């Protein structure tokens, strides 16, 4: 793997123009994202009256308003569910789905990468097919299937759907395990270890970075997921679904309270990202796509 210096050498006028335009574009986009988050965060600490008078101020925050807005956000009741209930539902969904999104693709990816068997090639082909063919129409059949199984409004139904092993995560694990030398496993086999023991004690620990990366990506994806709970968990709304309900609640015009709920939802993923940022970036570089 190459380590290099990439510092821009502004040697030609064309480069100066190119990088200036690029810098401005990047700055504009970054400013929009930062502004949105700052507006949301500071807005959650402002009073409704002050906010309505001057929506763009970001400094007239007060402890009283923080308490008031967050109290209101947490006390809201959507069909008997509070924000805390929704956070609980999100936590159940995230923990279950993240475990399944990591464990099943990990062992599938390992077996396909390291063993020779009849279906080996086909499983990789299936994974690519699932990414290429748009199967949005199957929503109807899946919805009916979950309904017929009696799993509508049940976390088990969502877990069942999430428990697939052939998809994008599988490809990531497969690529990663292909790069790990088989000699490690052979040493284990000589010591009398079984296939499962070799996987669990020798190969899996080496895949720690990619496991963390996929777990974090899965955590963030499931925490933010609106679509699945919207369709399959009508009476067990998650935080993402609940947030959207604020627009139709008695706080529909009270943006500071809405900002408070949005800040709660966003803080969780930002914290996770801050803690695991380096691992994600390194794993994507090591096991990600080759250009």
């Amino acid at each position, binding site marked *: 793997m190459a380590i290099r210096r*990439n510092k821009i050498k502004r040697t030609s006028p064309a480069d100066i123009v190119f990088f200036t335009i690029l810098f401005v574009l990047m700055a504009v986009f970054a400013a929009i994202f930062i502004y949105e988050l700052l507006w949301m965060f500071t807005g959650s600490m402002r009073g409704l009256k002050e906010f309505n008078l001057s929506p763009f101020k970001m400094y007239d925050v007060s402890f009283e308003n923080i308490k008031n807005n967050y109290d209101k956000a947490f006390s809201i009741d959507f069909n008997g569910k509070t924000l805390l209930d929704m956070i609980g539902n999100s936590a159940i969904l995230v923990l279950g789905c993240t475990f399944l999104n990591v464990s099943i693709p990990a062992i599938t990816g390992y077996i396909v990468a390291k063993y020779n068997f009849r279906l080996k090639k086909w499983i990789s082909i299936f994974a690519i097919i699932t990414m290429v063919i748009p*199967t949005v129409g199957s929503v109807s059949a899946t919805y009916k*299937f979950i309904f017929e199984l009696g799993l509508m409004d049940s976390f088990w139904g969502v877990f069942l759907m999430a428990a697939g092993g052939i998809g994008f995560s599988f490809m990531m694990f497969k690529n990663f395990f292909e790069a790990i030398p088989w000699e490690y496993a052979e040493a284990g086999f000589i010591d009398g270890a079984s296939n499962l023991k070799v996987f669990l004690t020798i190969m899996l620990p080496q895949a720690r970075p990619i496991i963390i990366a996929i777990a974090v990506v899965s955590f963030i994806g499931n925490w933010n997921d609106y679509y699945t709970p919207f369709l399959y968990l009508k009476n067990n709304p998650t935080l993402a679904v609940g*947030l959207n309900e604020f627009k139709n609640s008695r706080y529909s015009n009270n943006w500071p309270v809405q900002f408070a709920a949005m800040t709660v939802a966003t803080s969780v993923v930002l914290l996770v990202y801050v803690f695991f940022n380096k691992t994600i970036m390194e794993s994507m570089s090591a096991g990600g796509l080759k250009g």
Partner: protein
Amino acid sequence: MKKKLSAKQKKDAIFIYGFLAWPILHFVVFWIGMNFRTFYDSFFDISIVEGAGVVYQWDNFDNYIRVFKIIFNKAPYDNYDLSGIINYRAVTNSLSLIPLALFINMPLTILFAYGIFKKVPMYGFFRIALFLPSLVSSVVLCMCFQMAIDINRGILPEILRWFGLTGARGDPANMGIIPQGGFLADPKTCWPMILVFSVINGVSGNLIYFTSTMARLPASVFESAELDGASSLRQFVSIVVPMIWPTITTMTVTLVAAVFTWIMPSLLMTDGGQWYSTTIGLMITQVVKNDMYNTVMSAFGVIVAIFGTIIIVSIKTGMEKLFEGVEY
């Protein structure tokens, strides 16, 4: 020796098929099974009959005819109003996302990744800031965007006010270029506004893959190019783009495939696709949620799968022909 080897093979087979049984079964049920059922259902009319339960009635190609009528004759279907859930604009809107993905979002993402790779000033900050929309829930992003373009309290109307394009805040008689109900409540501006949202929030999705792919490019190639006097712009066009072309192709394929399941902004910002802002994915989802036995949407799904695959494979094949993969 031979016996021992076959015992090992046996153990291997038990391990392999034991652990692959579930993922394969899951794939067979949830991918092959569900798609087959969609295809099967598309030839039937399903109704609930008291005493008989769910009744399937052979419907020939009627569902497909209905779909084409919706698309080409712009005809309302059954009790659904044309401006409502089922709408020919679902197709045109979804298809309009393809050029947006190919010619705006993808080039911007690659350029931003190159800026980070080449360490433009504040590149560390940009790497995090530009990745933010990938972390934040689309519900939050949509709510922020709606608020930012709100007539009375949004930043966009405020900016337009600075330029004299609209009147004083809260003055309905002097809205200027802003539609009376706001940007998201007018058929002329609703979909374009959603496209703006998609451009703003769509650049960050694949940024991490491009920056990591660029980080793997061999330093020697750039050193040689610099010795030959190649500018950074030239390096981007002649070295970076051809060398990361397989990643660009893969990401383009996933982006275009995502167009057909693209739902969230319309669902969240326009009360489920009002003002001609629905998409294929949203239309199917809403109909299924209202009436899961509606088989017209199964036919629609089959048509989308066929034409979507043709579009995706054509783009993939075309892109693969443009540059050959470079080994390094």
